[in-house]
């Protein structure tokens, strides 16, 4: 089995910790100021209060009332929970009002008696302290501090309550806390970070240590929304063995033939090619096929403003407006430079949960890649893949590469994330722009490996197989357009 745990209700966190925080033990949440520790504590308090684990929230930097107000602002309804007697608050802010001078030894019995009373009289089962750093101020000598902290954790154990202690870190990496001792005595240590990565804020959370329990290792992206903290674990619930049975038609016979029967359900398709090779067109086809069938589709565009995108589709015979009006298609365009990847992940998650699309298009992820750091982008892609798999959605992502490079490109994680990869290219050696595409990879399927031609005609698109002669002829006279 495993040690008893309490779920936290913080999206993603219970996955990282394989079930939540250790019951009856102490958890340390460390991070620089502004990393979201208090929000973590408030969300946790709300969840525990609603699940018959009455918490006592001890405010040191901010009063209990202020913490309740902050929680209410996140929609947690903490004041209501307090009024209903499902949670309690205590203030230790007064000593911040005036100077505190030290005249000799002291211990923690003031707090201990207060906690004892809370447990005995109010049946409190969890105690959350925000924060230990503020509590132990002025900071005593390390030896005394260690004793105080031990005394605190020992009291929590003795009272049989679950403890969550917040502490401030001097930096994002390196020494864990300003006090320097807490991580040794706590069974679970969580670190929250908020760093700047190529001009972008990047929030992350890490389960640094979890005694007697397995957990996800390393940092995971997270973000703070108007509803609180949201974490994106990269390995979601076990994905059922991939069974590539269900397919849906693209609406273009040649394309269905090329993919061996149509697009695969619950798969992530990457369409890769240079600008002008027809990726957006293909994305449009994919989106339309779904919407026309009555499914819900979300199209995220990062290349052009929405009116231009919609008009371009119309011009090539793929009118989107009726589908948008019927509610089956949502087109959302964003400038990647002004985008926070965490916010985009959250927006995706909320979009999936509220609108429930079965298909998602992102055109193109390269725009996002160029506007972020390698690390952020990688975390983003993995977050997207995890999100999609968690909800069993299908997606098509377009990727821009240089002409002629389509087959060679790419970060290994992108290829791993994709169930199918289509490569598109074009040559301008004939009078017409000759667009070609082929399936490079299609997991779990037999598919054509030969190149196909994409032809834009009045009223739509045509996809037709190239004969070997045509292909060889093209290849020998190939004259790619310089960029």
């Amino acid at each position, binding site marked *: 089995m495993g040690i008893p745990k309490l779920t936290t209700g913080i999206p993603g966190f219970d996955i990282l910790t394989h079930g939540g925080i250790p019951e009856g033990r102490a958890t340390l949440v460390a991070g620089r100021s502004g990393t979201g520790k208090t929000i973590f504590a408030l969300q946790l308090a709300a969840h525990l209060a609603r699940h018959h684990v009455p918490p006592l929230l001890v405010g040191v930097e901010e009063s209990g009332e202020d913490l309740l107000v902050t929680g209410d602002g996140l929609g947690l309804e903490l004041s209501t929970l307090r009024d209903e007697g499902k949670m309690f608050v205590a203030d230790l802010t007064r*000593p911040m009002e005036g100077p*505190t001078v030290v005249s*000799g*030894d*002291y211990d923690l*019995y*003031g707090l201990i*008696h*207060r906690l004892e*009373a809370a447990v005995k009289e109010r049946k409190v089962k969890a105690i959350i302290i925000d924060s230990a750093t503020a509590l132990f101020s002025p900071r005593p000598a390390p030896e005394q501090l260690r004793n105080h902290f031990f005394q605190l954790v020992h009291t929590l154990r003795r009272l049989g309550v679950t403890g969550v202690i917040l502490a401030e870190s001097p930096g994002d990496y390196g020494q864990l806390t300003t006090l320097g001792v807490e991580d040794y005595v706590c069974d679970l240590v969580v670190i929250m970070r908020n760093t700047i990565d190529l001009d972008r804020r990047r929030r992350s959370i890490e389960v640094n240590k979890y005694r007697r329990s397995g957990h996800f290792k390393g940092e995971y992206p997270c973000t703070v929304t108007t509803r609180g903290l949201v974490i994106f674990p990269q390995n979601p619930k076990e994905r059922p063995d991939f069974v590539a049975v269900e397919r849906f038609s693209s609406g273009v016979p040649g394309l269905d033939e090329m993919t061996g029967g149509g697009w695969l359900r619950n798969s992530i398709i990457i369409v890769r090619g240079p600008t002008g090779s027809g990726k957006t067109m293909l994305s449009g086809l994919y989106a339309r096929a779904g919407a026309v069938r009555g499914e819900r589709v979300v199209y995220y565009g990062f290349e052009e403003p929405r009116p231009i995108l919609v008009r371009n589709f119309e011009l090539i015979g793929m009118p989107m407006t009726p589908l948008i009006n019927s509610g089956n298609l949502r087109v959302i365009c964003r400038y990647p430079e002004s985008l926070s990847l965490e916010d985009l992940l959250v927006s995706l998650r909320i979009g999936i949960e509220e609108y429930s699309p079965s298909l998602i298009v992102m055109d193109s992820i390269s725009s996002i890649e160029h506007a972020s750091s390698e690390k952020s982008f990688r975390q983003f892609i993995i977050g997207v893949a995890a999100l999609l798999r968690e909800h069993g959605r299908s997606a098509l992502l377009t990727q821009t590469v240089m002409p002629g490079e389509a087959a060679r490109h790419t970060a290994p994680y992108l290829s791993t994330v994709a169930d199918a990869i289509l490569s598109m290219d074009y040559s301008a050696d004939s009078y017409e722009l000759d667009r070609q595409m082929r399936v490079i990879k299609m997991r779990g399927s037999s598919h054509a490996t030969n190149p196909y031609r994409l032809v834009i005609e009045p009223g739509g698109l045509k996809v037709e197989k190239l004969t070997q002669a045509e292909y060889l002829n093209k290849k020998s006279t190939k004259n790619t357009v310089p960029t």
Partner: protein
Amino acid sequence: MDRDRHPIELVLYISASSPPSVRALANLRRILRQYKSDHVAVDVCDLTTDPSCGERDQIAFTPTLCKRAPDPPMWILGDLSRPEPLIELLEYYGVEPTHGHPQAHHRHPRL
């Protein structure tokens, strides 16, 4: 400060479980005996018998000596083995020493 009408109000928070608290009581008694009793009003609050009395001043540590009046509030943590903070406080507010005639502070039985 008008010391005739406004004595300093001090509260010592202690806990029977806390060894420094016991020392603080003795040290406080010893120090206050050197000063005129009508200038200082002292109360002792034992958190083991009355946990709620610590809530008003939000006491986390014991012993804590809290100056409730006059404003601003001030906290002296610790067993008073270093008497300077308290002595400086008393002298700042013009509490007069008894010059060799130790006085008992009868406001509280434990002192």
